[in-house]
């Protein structure tokens, strides 16, 4: 998987925005790590709030996703796109452009 930004980087526009598939893979990997389940068992169509992630953990995940993408994720993105599949598609098609102000 590509890693547009390493942990600790400041936000900056990503030269080549990751695809929906790459974002989905990042989310699966990190949700698995935070919830202690195998990545293969992470259902990408399950609501994120059913993964036993509380809102603080979800915000931590969002912060790390922003750092990886190099752009800000809207606070309501998880509200309107509540599954890994839908969030990845949203970020790949509109979220990154919106977040960078274009």
């Amino acid at each position, binding site marked *: 998987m590509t890693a547009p930004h390493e942990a*600790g980087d400041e936000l900056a526009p990503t030269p080549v925005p990751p695809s929906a598939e790459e974002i989905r893979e990042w989310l699966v990997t990190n949700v698995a*790590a935070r919830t202690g389940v195998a990545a293969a068992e992470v259902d990408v169509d399950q609501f994120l709030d059913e993964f036993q992630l509380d809102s603080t953990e979800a*915000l*931590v995940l969002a*912060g790390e996703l*922003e750092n990886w993408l190099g752009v800000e994720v809207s*606070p*309501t993105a998880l509200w*309107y796109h509540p599954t890994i599949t839908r969030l990845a598609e949203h970020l790949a098609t509109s979220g990154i452009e919106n977040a960078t102000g274009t």
Partner: protein
Amino acid sequence: MPPAPDARPLLRQLTPGPSDQRTVLIHPGGLSSAHYRPLAATLAARSTPYLVDLDALPQFVSAARHGGAADLSWIADAVTAVLDAHHLLDPRTTLGGWSAGGTLAYAVAAGLPPPRRPGLLVLLDSLPPWSDTRHDAIEDTAALLPVFGRYLAARAGVPAPDPDAIRPATPPGQEEPNTHDQWLWGLRQAALAVGALDEDVSLPGLRKVFQSYRWGLLRNRRIGAGVTPGTLTTPTTLVRARTSIIPDADVPGWRAVPHLRTVLVPGDHYTMLTEPASVELVSAELVRAGPTQDIPTARDPLRLGPR
């Protein structure tokens, strides 16, 4: 905005209870609604508890991002509408709320004609709607971190970090960290020491949590903007946590409310909903009879009532 695919209800009944007494609590997010379970269980014998979950309003969630400038008067309108739709606007209802939920409860009640007002208002460690809403009060990272530490501790169910233990520290790998990051990293270390954070919370993740917390505070401090004191004669109880979030400068603001009494409970702003001794006292206030009952003054330790 499009409708949410998994819309959560704005109003829900927490547990069954007597139909002739209702307690409606407004929850402003921040903590999980599960924090109301002990209170609901204690209330259920004497009243039917309901929760208004403001996080069910996507505009409320979004307003945290724009809390410094947004007109938030629509939030009181939305809550009034849902209570009206469920026939909960009359004197048989005790209306209350924790933190900004109490501030909003006051604003909702103030906007109602007398026959539809609740019989009692109970505000759990809430700021007056006319409190200071300056942005710079929220911008001081170092000053806000002890409160943020208490918030993280309450979520984790552990004692709060010692404020004196929160010192600037350099995050690993950063040769020239900014002051904000240094304070956050220091808070992270203090929070790790008491178990309020997990080891795997990175600096970018903590930045996001703190940013969301700070913006939410600003939004919450504007939630009752426009409401003035003196317009509401409903008996009102301010329940203040021993370690309160209400700044000393805002405490006198409540003195302008007629028929106000105050009660002090154990715990801090975040644990007052779950600490057993506090739950007992809060529950007793929520089911206390309205204006026809004598109002004791012995439990007004802060002397906030009208003088």
